[in-house]
């Protein structure tokens, strides 16, 4: 399972290789790798290490409910949003034209989501925020800056809410669920729209080159 979690660097190279040798190659995927590095700045807003580091060996007995507060942890703060999952989504997005690559990348998204939780590397809410962050990465690299700004605003709104309004979030579980579901669904819809627009753009570019 650790192996699957650590497959990301390999998938980054493989995904780039697939994209590079496809007929509709563009440098978008490579640029997206660099854009994803913005995550490092977002980690500063709500620095956290992960349930595996918080709970340690007691991960299996984590049904406790400790009081909410800041806690000193000497581990790296690379939790929210999940760069692993957003990168997996980005690699999938830029490899949709190849059927086999698309399926492998889709499987990689599910494997990454599962392993990040199973290994205690990320909280569930980290994965929720990785969807709008992936939308931000995809939109900014393909030149859809308004959509990218909206996606980043969504991420920042979540991070700000976690930091300053945690009591409100925790005391309204239904609204929290609705907000999480809307975030994932909205991001997925816009990712699909971006996908369709990208395919249309690539087709028109091919026709232009052929002409």
């Amino acid at each position, binding site marked *: 399972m*650790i192996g699957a979690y650590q497959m990301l660097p390999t998938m980054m190279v493989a995904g780039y290789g697939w994209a590079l040798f496809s007929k509709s190659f563009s440098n978008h995927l490579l640029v997206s790798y660099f854009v994803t590095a913005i995550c490092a700045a977002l980690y500063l807003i*709500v620095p956290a290490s992960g349930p595996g580091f918080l709970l340690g060996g007691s991960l299996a007995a984590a049904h406790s409910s400790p009081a909410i507060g800041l806690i000193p942890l*000497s581990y*790296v703060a690379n939790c929210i949003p999940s760069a692993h999952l957003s990168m997996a989504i980005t690699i999938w997005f830029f490899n949709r034209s190849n059927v086999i690559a698309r399926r492998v990348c889709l499987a990689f998204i599910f494997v990454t989501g599962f392993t990040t939780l199973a290994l205690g590397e990320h909280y569930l809410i980290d994965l929720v925020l990785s969807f709008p962050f992936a939308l931000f990465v995809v939109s900014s690299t393909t030149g859809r800056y308004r959509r990218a700004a909206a996606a980043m605003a969504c991420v920042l709104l979540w991070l700000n809410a976690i930091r300053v309004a945690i009591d409100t979030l*925790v005391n309204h579980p239904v609204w929290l669920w609705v907000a999480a579901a809307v975030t994932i669904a909205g991001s997925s819809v816009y990712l699909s729209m971006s996908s369709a627009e990208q395919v249309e753009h690539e087709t028109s570019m091919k026709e232009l080159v052929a002409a």
Partner: protein
Amino acid sequence: MILSILFLLALLAAHSFVGDTVARIAGIAALCFWCAFRPSDDRRIKVFFYSVVMLVMSIAILFVLGLINQVSLLKYDLYLHAIDRTLGFCPAQLAFA
């Protein structure tokens, strides 16, 4: 393409026995694979160049993460844990790993 998937699966199996650093090096091994199967294609130079850039970038990110850790020793883990519990999710559910 089928060969590349088999190669990735072999890497996945290999990753189960090695650490994070070796996994990154395995990424470069994947690059060599792509280069080897397109020996007459000039784009292999691009793959090589960008893979090296990615390797440097990953090291730079690790460095930045180290700096962030120095800035903020106090973490919000209990906040996120509380949200997960409110969502009905607990790490124990997947702790068999």
